């Protein structure tokens, strides 16, 4: 049995200190009021203990006191609320220009993919001093990505990407726990986050036996599944051109405008008829049961790299409602022009979609 036991986790992220400060404040408040009440009731019990002479004094109440001890706790509560809300808001906003990592949780392991193509299971190497954004999805039930040393936690849901971010401040190896009960080996779904100095991290990236960057893996999958048949930049393509798509607003056939983010790309692969781009037919077959979550992440990464050299506009947006109408590219007109020039008859090649009730890999 380990005898030297700590009572506080390490502070290994930029936010950890702020979270701990709020915690300490709350510990003080709790200690103060608990001691106050405990001492008062013990003191009263002794000072006013029953004796044959003692007469209790009948006091109905005091509206003033009631107001005082409602308002003061309310005031303290509001301080705590604002403090906690500020920290939360900061932790829930996507950082600008982060190092992106992708995670897939499944019963009962974590799989991580780096943009350079490195893959890890249950371990995540990150550099210190840089914002790292982990975009995650679950393959089955709800899990939760929890790193106590960073004070971060995010439930990982099936069918929907979520993200969390942190900036590690000191090298070391820290616990990674799954903290949403997920079945038999819930407590075995643990791992570690390895924080390295930038030089060590660069060496680690270089030494890994990556088969190529994540984007190039995605490109291979993109070709393997026959996506290039329809999604081409030339005229006459039956599917929208994906170059420069990521992070842009897209107009759909029903005139809605949505943002082409990770969730949009994933949905387009799995439920292609949910959102059809204006000017196109909904003829894309679904790839549910054919392509895995890992491959979707890789394909997404590839599509992100189809943008010409500009900064990812996605980082500054939080919702499609911020898009101004003038920003919407007139895809319909572009393609009409292209289609008039060279009508083409081509049959889709590549894998046929499986019966929807088929099992996922």
């Amino acid at each position, binding site marked *: 049995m380990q005898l030297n*036991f700590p009572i506080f986790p390490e502070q290994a992220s930029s936010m950890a200190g702020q979270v701990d400060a709020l915690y300490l404040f709350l510990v003080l408040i709790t200690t103060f009021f608990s001691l106050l009440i*405990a001492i008062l009731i013990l003191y*009263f019990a002794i000072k006013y203990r*029953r004796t044959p002479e003692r007469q209790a004094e009948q006091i109905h109440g005091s509206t003033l006191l*009631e107001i005082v001890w409602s308002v003061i706790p309310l005031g303290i*509560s509001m301080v705590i609320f604002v403090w906690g*809300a500020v920290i939360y808001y900061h932790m829930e906003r996507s950082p600008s220009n982060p190092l992106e990592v992708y995670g897939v949780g499944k019963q009962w392991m974590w799989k991580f993919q780096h943009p350079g193509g490195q893959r890890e299971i249950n371990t995540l190497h990150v550099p210190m001093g840089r914002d790292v954004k982990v975009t995650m999805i679950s393959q089955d039930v709800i899990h939760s990505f929890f790193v106590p040393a960073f004070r971060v936690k995010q439930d990982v849901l099936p069918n929907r990407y979520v993200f969390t971010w942190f900036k590690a401040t000191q090298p070391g190896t820290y616990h990674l726990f799954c*903290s949403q009960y997920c079945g038999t080996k819930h*407590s075995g779904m643990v791992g570690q986050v390895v924080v390295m100095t930038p030089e060590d991290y660069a060496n680690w990236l270089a030494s890994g036996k990556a088969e190529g960057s994540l984007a190039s893996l995605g490109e291979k999958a993109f070709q393997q599944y026959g996506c290039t048949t329809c999604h081409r930049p030339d005229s006459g393509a039956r599917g929208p051109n994906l170059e420069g798509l990521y992070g842009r607003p897209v107009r759909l056939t029903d005139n809605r405008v949505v943002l082409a983010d990770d969730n949009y790309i994933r949905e387009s692969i799995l439920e292609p008829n949910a959102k059809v781009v204006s000017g196109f037919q909904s003829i894309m077959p679904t790839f549910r049961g054919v392509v895995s979550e890992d491959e979707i992440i890789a394909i997404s990464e590839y599509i992100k790299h189809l943008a010409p050299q500009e900064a990812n506009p996605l980082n500054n947006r939080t919702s499609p409602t911020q898009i101004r109408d003038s920003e919407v590219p007139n895809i319909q007109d572009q393609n009409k022009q292209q289609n008039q020039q060279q009508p083409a008859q081509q049959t889709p090649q590549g894998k046929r979609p499986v019966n929807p009730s088929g099992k996922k890999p």
Partner: protein
Amino acid sequence: MSTATAIVKPVMPERHFLNDNYGIRSWLLTKDHKRIAILYLFSITVFFLVGGVFASLIRLHLLTPNGELFEADTYNKLFTMHGVNMVFFFLIPSVPAVLGNFLVPIMVGTKDLAFPKINLLSWYLYIAGGTFSMAAMVSGGVDSGWTFYAPLSSGYLKTHVIMLAVGVIIAGFSSIFTGLNFIVTVHRMRAPGMTWGKLPLFVWSNYAASLIMILGTPVIAITLILLALERGFHIGIFDPKLGGDPVLFQHMFWFYSHPAVYIMILPGMGVISEIVPCFSRKRIFGYSFVAFSSIAIAVFGFVVWAHHMFVAGISVYSALVFSLLSYAVAIPSAVKVFNWTATMYKGSIEMSTPMLYAMAFIGLFTIGGLTGLFLAALGLDIHIHDTYFVIAHFHYVMVGGMVTAYLGGLHFWWPKITGRMYPEAPAKLAALITFIGFNLTFFPQFILGYMGMPRRYWAYPPEFQVLNVLSSAGASVLAVGFLLPLLYFAWSLKYGEIAGDNPWQATGLEWETSSPPPTHNFHHIPIVTKDPYAYGEDAEVTVVH
């Protein structure tokens, strides 16, 4: 001071509700709210022991970090069955179904609840629900967690989830009918002169809890019905593989399960509001404020459910609203704590066992309630959500709060229910043991939680072991503290001192009738003229036969 009361030693009344009728049929087909309360007393004690056994096994297993005692699947079943038994079959019925059933009609001055047959039906529904739960246990156990999250419970587990869910649904209807009965009784059957402003606070608390019972419980019923349909027929309500939304399950589940914790604590607060004035010989400080706080807790309790979901994928704006409202719901509870403390000020305090439990409640509930503020703080909750911090918090309010209040209430009204006193010395000892054992068990878990130990972990990193061992040691002490009352209460039935009508010289209509009360509660319907808690003014409580 008081004029001479009966100098003669008290005797048991010749006829009372316990001996008015003999035979198993007179108990199993009874319409007497007092007998139904006794039926509940036995059954919830059984479920408490079952849940307690599971808790003991959990703490035993967690002595070592590598999961040596039980398999992971078994451990997952242990915490599920511990939670289900304790929440649905012990805590929710405890004070309302035992003490509430017994006392509410007497406290409002009437012969029985509004619907005695429905009251009996409530008990049978509870037994039916409990049977399903036991059946699920016996046929291998269920490992969904008491929270039944989807899609794990609906699409992935291989255990008898539906059987357990059905048990909870049926027990829910038991709760609904109890609440319905209380509401109608309090509204329509008060004795002449018993205005709302003269009701004991125990009645106010049970009334507020009943409001929650009738409005919230149907939602968990339909939620679990939908979960069962999804699991049984493979349709997609919550499972995203079938087009559903798992976060919707959480919203619907917590819409009931958060108010449920107020169903659990409000009646306990009502008990404390009766004990503290009696053992301080002083009227309660701020009666109206305490009464309205109960209603405020019930109302606010319905609008804070998503504070269980801050990291579940809800929007930041939702989270802000729910965090803000969660602080609002803490205020009425704080008001009550201050009012109880102020009641003791300049009182004449006697530290009998009920008062010991009441004081323990005030202290432990304060700690438990304040740690709720930690969890309501958004930025902090990210770190401590789903860790042992949460476990420590809710055990402080539910065990340190609710179970303590229940035990205090049992001791306070034991003479009224049975006609006999429990033995004071063992009782005080048990209270002390319980207090020590409780704190030793759960305080280390706050630290474990902040360290990062997640909930529902079968095995854990070795640096958490010391605190786990401390916690398990405390649990063994706590177990002794809980078992002792079983022994001396049983002993008291035969050998306990005869109590008489009002051994505590307390106010309240229940103390104006015999101990045990006659089947029809009163020989004559009382007409109420006094304020509640009129200690000191009419120092003598008149006894009418």
